[in-house]
């Protein structure tokens, strides 16, 4: 049997993640989080390995991956910028923040810049509602975003 080189490597790594976590109660989400942590996304070839390891159908695993907003089907940009678009931030002009960022980066939500530097995503609440409008850049929280902070963010992700 001929298997593509990259496939086997991913499969082997996923298999070892599954082996290590199979004993948990309800292991599927923790496994998917770990796989995404490892690869930056959930590769297609991981699904059969996870399904086999947990005695599930591939369809069940795919159904879970596609249900949750967090799991990526392809790698994100080097930076991931999540901009809150929920009510509290709306009340402080998050629409404006989002359009400034989209314009500066030349992309829309759910897109990655052609140079692979940054992926822009909406997020619905970061729990920073007394510091609206808010965003999260690679896990770092940013509050009270004004025009200057937009410029700082853009400069940072372009650097």
């Amino acid at each position, binding site marked *: 049997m001929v298997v593509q080189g990259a496939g086997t490597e991913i499969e082997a790594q996923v298999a070892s993640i599954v082996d290590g976590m199979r004993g948990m*109660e*309800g*292991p*599927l*989400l*923790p496994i*998917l*989080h770990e796989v995404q942590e490892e690869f930056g996304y959930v590769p297609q070839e991981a699904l059969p390995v996870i399904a086999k390891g*947990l005695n599930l159908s591939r369809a*069940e695993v795919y*159904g*879970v991956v596609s*249900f*949750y*907003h*967090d*799991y990526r089907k392809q790698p994100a940009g080097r930076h991931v910028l999540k901009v809150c678009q*929920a*009510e*509290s*931030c*709306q*009340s*402080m002009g998050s629409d404006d923040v989002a359009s400034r960022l989209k314009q500066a980066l030349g992309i829309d939500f759910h897109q990655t810049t052609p140079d692979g530097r940054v992926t822009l995503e909406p*997020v*619905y*609440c*970061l*729990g*920073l*509602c*007394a*510091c*609206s409008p*808010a965003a*999260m850049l690679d*896990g*770092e*929280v*940013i*509050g*009270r975003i004004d025009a200057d902070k937009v410029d700082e963010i853009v400069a940072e992700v372009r650097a």
Partner: protein
Amino acid sequence: MNPVIYIPGDSGALALGADKVAASIAAELKQRGIEAGIVRNGSRGAYFLEPMVEVETDAGRVAYGPVRASQVKGLFDAGFLSGGVHELALGDPEKIPFIARQTRLTFARCGITDPFSLEAYERHGGLAGLRKAASMAPAEIVAEVTESGLRGRGGAGFPTGIKWKTVLDTGDVRKYIVCNADEGDSGTFADRMIMEGDPFVLVEGMAIAGLATGATKGFIYIRSEYPHAVAAMRRAVEIARRARVLGPDVLGSGRAFDMEVRVGAGAYVCGEETALLDSLEGKRGMVRAKPPLPAHKGLFGRPTVINNVISLASVPIILHKGAAYYKDFGMGRSRGTIPLQIAGNIRHGGLFETAFGLTLGEIVDDIGGGTATGRPVKAVQVGGPLGAYFPRDLFDTPFDYEAFAAKDGLIGHAGIVVFDDSADMLKQARFAMEFCAIESCGKCTPCRIGSTRGVEVLDRLAAGIAPDSQIELVTDLCNTMKLGSLCALGGFTPYPVMSALTHFPEDFKPAPVREAAE
């Protein structure tokens, strides 16, 4: 004694630059050759003063804020380590009006202690509730919680003690305590603050729930948008386990309880308790039909207590001080305190724990100080994306489960989002429908399809196409969603939509008419 400096590590403070302030303070200490302890505490919740740095002096704690990294050198020059005078000086933090006016029961330690010092936790009254519970029979613990009048702080307001009794009375040998920390409602951050600022209180509350119901295993399901809270809870659980607060012999009681932290994956609907249980089991977060109740058949089909973070975090003080003490606060059937989260376009935003009963007007105008932009308040959304928009006319409504229900609203998780007069309520109504469409689990038709149709109808209304019939349609659609949806996502989306339509009809006039009127 070396001075001790408190710099919040709460993510709200971090979002405003607390880490940069901490780095500047550390650098300045080094340069000046001063030995000092730095504690990364939680936030006291006055976010308009964050990052708020406190110094322990002979005369007690002295606060400075909001501090920018560039101001740190000036603080040292002014001798802030011994409470020196500076333009940022706020004096005794307990005397800051926003803080002094609160009744802090659940948040008693938040922002004061080192979140990861079990010793500090105990010194400030922690573990007293669990120790007491360990000496009581399960039925007695449940009775105490029932007697306190505590109702689910997640939004539904169901009596916590009744839920616990149902689980206690089941004969199953395997039961679970699940903490719902999927705080997805915009305008809310109480769960995040307590997990980051006083994580042991949640560990203690869950352990008490375990002893009360005979459950030996707990799960905390935290949303992935809260990485700092996830890290804090994992660290706290580990410390508690090492100190035998958790494990096979909880505080030497001979009874076992342990817990695990689990992380969500960005689905709002998983804040609904049965969808959360499915998610924990490793499935799509689909809402389950009730009955069976989770108390009978919950996680993995076993009897399960599923409570919100704040409900569980309120239990230790109830056990410690007694049901009567807690019940003494509040009004009507809303007993105890509620951590209000004052957010959005607000001057003095933050967490304000108080007894039930303040009016919405007192909260927004008096405590919150009006809008941040200085423009008039137009609308206030209470209870998250599924809560109603209240106009100024309803500002006399007291903060109480029943009083809000009587005005076709809900208090939900007590998030209060303020909008100034630039808000377009038709746009807000459309967003409510759009959000429901994005986040619907898809199981029931009124929510899955109704929300999409709702967006379309409101778009036609905005475009001025047969406005009267669109209003009739959206009203009818909301009625169907309210009565026909399986859970609160589809069932409560009509609250923001209909309240916007009812209280702000001028925003729902077709575009040409609206322009002409301006």
